[in-house]
């Protein structure tokens, strides 16, 4: 007896057996209709409730993440503005020290110039000698009538000529005195010009200080804006963070290319130092040594940038004494230069090794290949690249700092957005399950439509018999 025979109710007529089984199933389903409906609805509501709860929890988490991101962004913005303000203050202090420290000297120059001007002015104020007192008496004599006594007339004429002569002499003296006065005034001109220039310079210096003060005002206004209107600031900072994050990532990618190039330049010659056949783990010792050199260089670059105050990745380094930092920066620079020199040497060794290998390969196949036209150009190029790359990679500290600073904000924004979408998806899924439950109820009824139809017909007839319904066919 096979497994299938168990389901054959009427031997010889499988179709009838199937129909009978369907009838039995429909009858059972009809009898279990209400509990089944409740079960389907309960299940769909349970799933809906669970998904809704999950959605709400996700939304709460999203709010917490968003709030935390907001705090981080505001703190980052405030810190950035504080740094900006600090730098502006430093620049202002430098400008004041540089421009206004010379103010006493300028003042002294002005006082000296004004003293000289005053002296020259006083010299120019010297009046020409007054005409002699007897001139008035001569004027009186000149008014006397000429047709008088014959003995007096010649005297008068003589007096007249003498007076005229005196007059001309006096006028000549006067003109000379006026000329001298004008010359004295002319000598004052350079002093005036110098005073004007000094005043102009003072004006420029004060203008520069004013510009610095304006920059401080702008930074201060931005700082206050963040403090007083955090919502607007967060929007601006969010966009700024994204842009800076991707820019920094692009620059770091370029820097990574430089690191890889650097690695390939020194990995082969490193085997001359540490051996080419030894391994540390699954990596060649020479590769590991090359990586160590590169990372020491990168670290020195980071320290150099820190000591110079360009980056602030390590707060403890930023708190060092102002006199100590330039010294440490110099030490880092010297170490970096030494390592760059080592790299340049290694690049030269690499070229030598490649040359030896090429010669050996040519000796194996003497009929092939030819000596390269010039070997010093690639050798020099490799050495220059190996020397310059460590210094170039130092500037990778700037995008690295930017990436790290903006990374938290970008990560928070991305996480919040993902959580928001997840909450939406969970809620939508919950609604879908609720609808599916109702659909399940309807599908259940569809499966057992014959008994339902009969039930409706019977109910209709009962009601009709009771006179509750008018003539109306059951639907």
């Amino acid at each position, binding site marked *: 007896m096979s497994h299938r025979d168990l389901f054959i109710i009427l031997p010889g007529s499988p179709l009838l057996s199937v129909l009978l089984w369907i009838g039995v199933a429909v009858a059972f389903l009809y009898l279990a209709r209400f509990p089944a409906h409740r079960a389907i609805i309960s299940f769909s509501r349970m799933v809906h409730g669970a998904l809704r709860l999950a959605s709400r929890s996700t939304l709460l988490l999203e709010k917490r993440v968003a709030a935390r991101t907001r705090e981080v962004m505001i703190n980052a913005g405030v810190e950035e503005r504080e740094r900006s303000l600090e730098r502006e203050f430093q620049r202002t202090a430098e400008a004041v020290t540089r421009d206004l420290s010379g103010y006493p000297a300028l003042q002294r120059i002005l006082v000296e110039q004004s003293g000289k001007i005053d002296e020259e002015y006083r010299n120019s104020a010297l009046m020409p000698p007054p005409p002699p007192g007897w001139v008035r008496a001569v004027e009186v004599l000149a008014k006397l009538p000429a047709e008088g006594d014959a003995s007096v007339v010649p005297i008068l004429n003589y007096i007249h000529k003498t007076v005229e002569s005196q007059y001309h002499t006096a006028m000549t003296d006067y003109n000379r005195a006026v000329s001298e006065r004008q010359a004295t005034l002319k000598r004052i001109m350079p002093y005036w010009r110098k005073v004007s220039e000094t005043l102009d310079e003072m004006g420029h210096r004060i203008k520069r200080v004013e510009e610095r003060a304006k920059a401080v005002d702008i930074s201060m206004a931005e700082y206050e804006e963040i403090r007083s209107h955090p919502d607007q600031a967060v929007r601006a900072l969010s966009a700024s963070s994204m842009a800076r994050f991707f820019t920094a990532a692009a620059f770091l990618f370029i820097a990574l290319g430089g*690191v890889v190039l650097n690695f390939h330049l020194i990995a082969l010659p490193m085997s001359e130092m540490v051996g080419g056949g030894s391994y540390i783990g699954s990596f*060649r010792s020479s*590769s590991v040594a090359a990586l160590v050199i590169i990372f020491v260089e990168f670290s020195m670059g980071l320290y150099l940038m820190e000591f110079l105050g360009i980056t602030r990745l390590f707060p403890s380094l930023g708190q060092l004494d102002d006199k100590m930092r330039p010294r440490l920066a110099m030490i880092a620079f010297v170490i970096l230069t030494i390592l760059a020199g080592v790299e340049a040497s290694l690049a030269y060794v690499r070229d030598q090794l490649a040359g030896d*290998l090429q010669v050996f390969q040519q000796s194996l196949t003497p009929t092939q290949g030819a000596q390269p036209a010039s070997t010093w150009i690639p050798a020099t190029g490799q050495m220059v690249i190996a020397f310059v790359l460590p210094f170039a990679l130092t500037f990778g500290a700037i995008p*690295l700092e930017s*990436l*790290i600073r903006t990374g938290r904000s970008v990560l928070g924004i991305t996480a919040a957005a993902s959580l928001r979408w997840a909450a939406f998806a969970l809620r939508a899924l919950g609604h879908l399950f609720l609808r599916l439950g109702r659909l399940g109820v309807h599908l259940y009824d569809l499966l057992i439509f014959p008994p339902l139809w009969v039930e409706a017909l019977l109910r209709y007839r009962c009601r009709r018999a009771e006179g509750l319904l008018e003539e109306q066919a059951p639907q």
Partner: protein
Amino acid sequence: MRWAVAILVLAQAVGIAGCTEPARKPRAAYLLIDAPRLRSAQAQAVVNYFLSALQPGESFGIACLGTGNFSDRDTIGSVSLDARPSLATQQKHLLKKKFDEFTSSPRPAGHLDIAGALLYTVAQLGETNAEERYVLILADLGKEQIPEPVKDFPLQMEGCRVIPIIVENGELIGRQQAAALKRLEAWEEWVQAGGGEWQVVNDLALLGTIFPGS
């Protein structure tokens, strides 16, 4: 902040380390060439290939077969390359020079003591502490003159791969070829009984996959 820097630097290190070559086990190879083939183009090609494929720290030796019972005198040259690439290249130069000098004069062909040569080379390779050991035989192992290996005295060849290079068997036909194959199978069984691996190479280009260079 410091954690972020450390993670970024570590990621960079892993990224660059991924660009490096994978770890390779130290290798050693010994090439046995029968006297008539010493001056052949195949012998030159095989020697040249191994000299260019060997890396610093690896070992290589060449010996001549077919001068009677195999002994130290049949060794053309052997070298354990220095870990420094520059010295390794010089050592390769010297070995090549020795080989060229050895092959400049013709050698009389005689009895091929394959078993003795294998015994010697396996011992030599064992001294190198290489993890991958290869014995290459550039000789016609199917020749009737070569006695079949004594199965009762298998050689200890664990970790050794014996590679006969057979590239000119086209002349053998019919019964001769069947006999040659049978003798080869006997050698294969003998090597495998000693714990070694057996791999016949019919094309010199396959050496690149068996013993890859840099």
